[in-house]
């Protein structure tokens, strides 16, 4: 059993994205770490202008799936295509943005908010990565969108949890990526930041981006996501957020003992 596709929306009203194929096209992906199975025969397509929630326990393979999509992990089987071509092309064109989990960031690193957001622009800069006017304008704009203009010169560790998340969302916006991968963007985040981030992601989707969100936050999900995927090493269900969040469906992913056995892998 693999995932199903629903609603490949290429909304003619927005018209920002020229191509009509799915942004993310994952087919039969299996990933093993030594002898631990992380992903088993995962297939998933996500179209442009869609926000897709990824739900599963810790260790269900959400981060592995993101890393596979970014090309950080090479799957033992299956293929990943982004924008209808090899993921490496999309990466070189700066079309993939990743917002890491807060735990995976060194917050004591001597960088200011503005420096981190500027890193979103590095892919398009010359070898020395010296910022041009257009880069600074993009960074200013992104900072304003996440409401961090006043904190641009703060060291990143001096921010609250919600502000920290917004820094990385701003980096993705400054990068002008068409595929956004966000790992737990709502954990440890205040209500106002959740709202800011949600609005921004919706507006990115309206502009033609595909947005994937790995999250534990079941309250936010129906508000922001068009579709949701229930993941436990494989795709258990791919449907509307309302359907996926039904207790009997969540039980499939959050009662691992049963699914592990039926995995048989």
């Amino acid at each position, binding site marked *: 059993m693999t995932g199903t596709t629903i609603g490949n929306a290429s909304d003619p009203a927005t018209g920002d994205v020229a191509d009509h194929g799915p942004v993310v096209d994952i087919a039969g992906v299996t990933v093993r770490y030594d002898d631990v199975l992380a992903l088993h025969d995962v297939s998933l397509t996500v179209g442009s202008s869609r926000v897709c929630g990824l739900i599963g326990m810790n260790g269900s393979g959400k981060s592995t799936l993101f890393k596979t999509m*970014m090309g950080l992990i090479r799957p033992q089987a299956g293929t990943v295509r982004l924008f209808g071509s090899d993921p490496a092309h999309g990466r070189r064109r700066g079309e993939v943005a*990743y917002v*890491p989990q807060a735990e*995976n960031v*060194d917050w004591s690193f*001597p960088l200011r908010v503005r420096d981190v957001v500027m890193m979103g622009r590095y892919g398009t800069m010359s070898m020395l990565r010296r910022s041009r006017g257009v880069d600074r304008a993009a960074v200013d704009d992104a900072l304003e969108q996440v409401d961090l203009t006043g904190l641009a010169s703060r060291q990143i560790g001096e921010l609250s949890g919600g502000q920290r998340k917004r820094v990385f969302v701003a*980096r993705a916006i400054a*990068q002008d990526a068409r595929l956004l991968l966000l790992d737990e963007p709502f954990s440890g985040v205040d209500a106002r930041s959740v709202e800011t981030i949600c609005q921004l992601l919706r507006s990115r989707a309206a502009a033609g981006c595909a947005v994937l969100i790995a999250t534990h936050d079941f309250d936010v999900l129906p508000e922001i996501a068009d579709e949701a995927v229930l993941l436990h090493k494989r795709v258990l269900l791919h449907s509307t957020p309302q359907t996926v969040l039904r207790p009997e469906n969540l039980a499939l992913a959050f009662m691992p003992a049963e699914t592990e056995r039926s995995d048989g892998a």
Partner: protein
Amino acid sequence: MSLFEFVVDVVVGPWQFEVMRRALLVTVVASLVCAVLSCWLVLIGWSLMGDAVSHAVLPGVVLAYMAGLPFAIGAFVFGCVAVWLIGTVHSTSRVKEDTSIGVVFTTLFALGLVLISATPSQVDFNHILFGNVLGVSDTDLWQVVIIGAVTGSALLVKNRDLTLYAFDPDHAHAIGISPRRLQVLLLVLLALTVVVALQAVGVILAVAMVIIPGATAYLLTNRMERMLVIAPLLAVACSVAGLYVSYYADVSPGGAVVLAQGSLFFVLYLVAPRRGLVRRLRVAAGRQ
């Protein structure tokens, strides 16, 4: 003699000698490039890697002397071998990385010691272990200056990429900048700076020069660009101070330079304006 003349005498004194001028040049070049590199090593958490590479070059240096090659070649080759071995052992066995580092560098260092003891020696290998900055030959001098210039410019050109790699390698990968290549570049540059540093302070203390300045600068600033300026400035100041002490007190120049760097670190660790221990204790006391 007036006080002024006395001061001038003290300041100028050491540099009347060719030997001391050479020592100054080598030490300043070494401390400059090492200090810049140290900023990234400290932030990535690669201090132990610096330790490993600096010790592991010993057999390379001995073999180079035996073969009549410039010591830099042997040192560089073995520095790279060490890095490669550490990565391979770590990724192809169940051994953790710090263990892999510990096994590889001590083994290579021991190989160096064995080679020294087996070599009918015209060269005093203590100079490799403890540095020989007062006996710098023309070849040594040129090696240091050329390697220093190459390493320095590479660090300058790639400085933003290296910071990106140190901070968020996944993001680098996502935007098409290979973190793997940057890692290799940084390790090669580490091997090269160690070659320069061991000329100044010897194999055993070389690691100090690729850790301490970055650590000290990190205590003083919250901005990478400033760290990359503060670290080399402090390191050069310590080099000069160390050489003065060495000249007037007649002590080991390598030892004096590293001792100056270490002492400065501890002073700032205690009294740095924002992150110093004293300041933090005061703030903590104020809260109660």
